[in-house]
């Protein structure tokens, strides 16, 4: 009888809001960053193997997919840093009022996109 009882719907029905979105994105970007750092290490090691392997990586990074990965990783790092700062402030006990959490959450999202664009422009030598 006990096991027959159904489990009520949870993540299927629960509404997302800014704080929960930032929180889950923080975890996802954390995982992406670990993969990203590994890739960057591999890239750096390939430099040691000489001009040919460097060229191959260069070709990959200049392709559409390469550009997407680079930009994506840049955003992921930016998001993680800003979100981490938000969580650090919360760990100090500040910023728990609903309104504040909404504002800081939005700041993290908008800030991460803004930082990515700035880094892109710096990379393009537009500054």
């Amino acid at each position, binding site marked *: 009888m006990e096991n027959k009882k*159904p489990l009520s*719907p949870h993540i299927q029905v629960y509404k997302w809001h800014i704080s929960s979105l930032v929180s*889950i994105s923080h975890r996802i970007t954390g995982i992406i960053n670990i993969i990203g750092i590994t890739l960057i290490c591999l890239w750096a090691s390939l430099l040691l193997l000489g001009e040919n392997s460097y060229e191959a990586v260069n070709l990959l990074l200049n392709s559409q997919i390469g550009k997407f990965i680079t930009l994506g990783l840049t955003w992921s790092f930016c998001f993680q840093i800003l979100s981490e700062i938000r969580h650090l402030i919360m760990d100090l006990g500040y910023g728990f009022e609903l309104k504040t959490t909404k504002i800081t959450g939005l700041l993290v999202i908008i800030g991460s996109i803004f930082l990515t664009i700035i880094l892109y422009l710096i990379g393009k030598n537009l500054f």
Partner: protein
Amino acid sequence: MAQIGLPDNSKVKKGKYFKDKTGSKNLRKVNVYRWDPSTEENPRIDTYEVDMDNCPSKVLDILNKIKNEIDPTLAYRRSCAHGVCGSCAMNMDGKNGLACTTPHKEIDGDINIYPLPHLKVKKDLIGDLDGLYKQYQSIEPWLKSNSKSETKEIFQSKEDRAKLDGAYECIMCACCSTSCPSYWWNGDKYLGPAVLLQAYRWIIDSRDEERNSRLKKVADELKLYRCHTILNCTSACPKGLNPAKAIAEIKKMLATANI
């Protein structure tokens, strides 16, 4: 690893459709989660057309109307209807709250009503909260004093009393705990926002003499530190309390205290 999907016996099917019989022009569709323990069937969503011209302002009024006028088999908890008892906590429009204090005007489109999330369902909108009550018991929510002879009242300054504001008002409706994804995945071990807010309430009570042992008790990787400040709890609380902040305060006390 947490199970993201619902088990097979919990998958929600389409249910019955109750067409309006009053001939009202002002109708709203209300989708309600139903499960009948006397059958072997899966839970289903029944849809009711409700005449809004003759319905008071809160979601609980809609449920009462359905039960009284359309379908008497619907089961849900309710008692005070004034946001004090915490009985009618449920998930409305994807957010936990008290049906008696949630205006249906604030919900756009069809009204979706589910039981509190990630609970074993007893019937329809009634979830099993035994686990939560056991956890509440585990934090020993009563004043503990070692003083041998208590012949007079224990004094508390106005400042110390003010520290309890925002913690003592909790009505244990479980809106916060059942809104918390960490509690969904680790509800058997993680205490959850409602119980941790109460743990905090007794830790900071100046009259309580077991502060350190209370702190030691919650200082646990699973009991306390599963909180990842998702803040579903604070945004769900129908009494406007802030369990997430209370949990952060406990973490802070543990980080700075010498116990």
